[in-house]
């Protein structure tokens, strides 16, 4: 077994972000996972690919971040409205995570557009 530090992924949810210029941002709403290079068991391992950042509690996107074509359009429009400030970060934008301070330090000053996830 490796002795890399272990954490609960749910600890990451709800952490607030801090931009490179020191401003505080919103909270982690969801974590995007993607297959990594190594194989673990039968599948490729899952590694973090990005973060969804917004003001709302985790879980209120109802999955509408994944497929922009999904209906019904009224619900999708409502979710978009509620999450209009919600944005995305690639993992490369993350400088580091302070697990005790519950903060994600970033290398960038802005969020990206919430986009459809690959995979």
């Amino acid at each position, binding site marked *: 077994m490796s002795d890399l*530090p272990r*954490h*609960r992924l749910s600890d990451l949810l709800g952490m607030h972000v801090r931009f490179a210029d020191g401003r505080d941002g919103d909270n982690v709403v969801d974590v995007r996972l993607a297959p990594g290079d190594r194989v673990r068991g*039968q599948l490729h391992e899952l590694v973090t690919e990005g973060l969804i950042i917004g003001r709302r509690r985790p879980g209120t996107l109802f999955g509408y971040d994944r497929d922009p074509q999904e209906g019904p359009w009224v619900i999708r429009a409502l979710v978009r409205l509620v999450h209009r400030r919600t944005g995305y970060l690639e993992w490369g934008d993350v400088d580091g995570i302070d697990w005790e301070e519950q903060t994600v330090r970033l290398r960038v000053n802005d969020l990206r557009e919430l986009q459809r*996830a690959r995979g």
Partner: protein
Amino acid sequence: MLQLFDRQILDPDGRMVAKVDDVEVEERPDGRLAVTALLTGPGALGPRLGGALGGISSRAWARLTGKDSSDSNPIDYSLVADIGSAITLSVSRAAVGVDGFEVWARTRIIAALPGAGKDPQ
């Protein structure tokens, strides 16, 4: 889409194992987090419920199963065979052993009733 939280975990026979209550990750040197295990049980779900509700339910559940309330029943990620609308393992439910409350219910109450082991008619 590779969503793990709150998905049903099944064994190869389709038997229900648990739900993904939380996910354990390790921090790689390059900063990325890699999934090492699926966490189930009151110790895993309690913190996600948050606040007083989470604390109460963890402790109540822990009492029934006789385990430590922070115990989280990990299922190593290497045992996962497929991820879809549910997560399928490559080993049977018994092999994973996350069933504290089920075993308690079975031995204390259900097995005492006649017909517990028979197929329904």
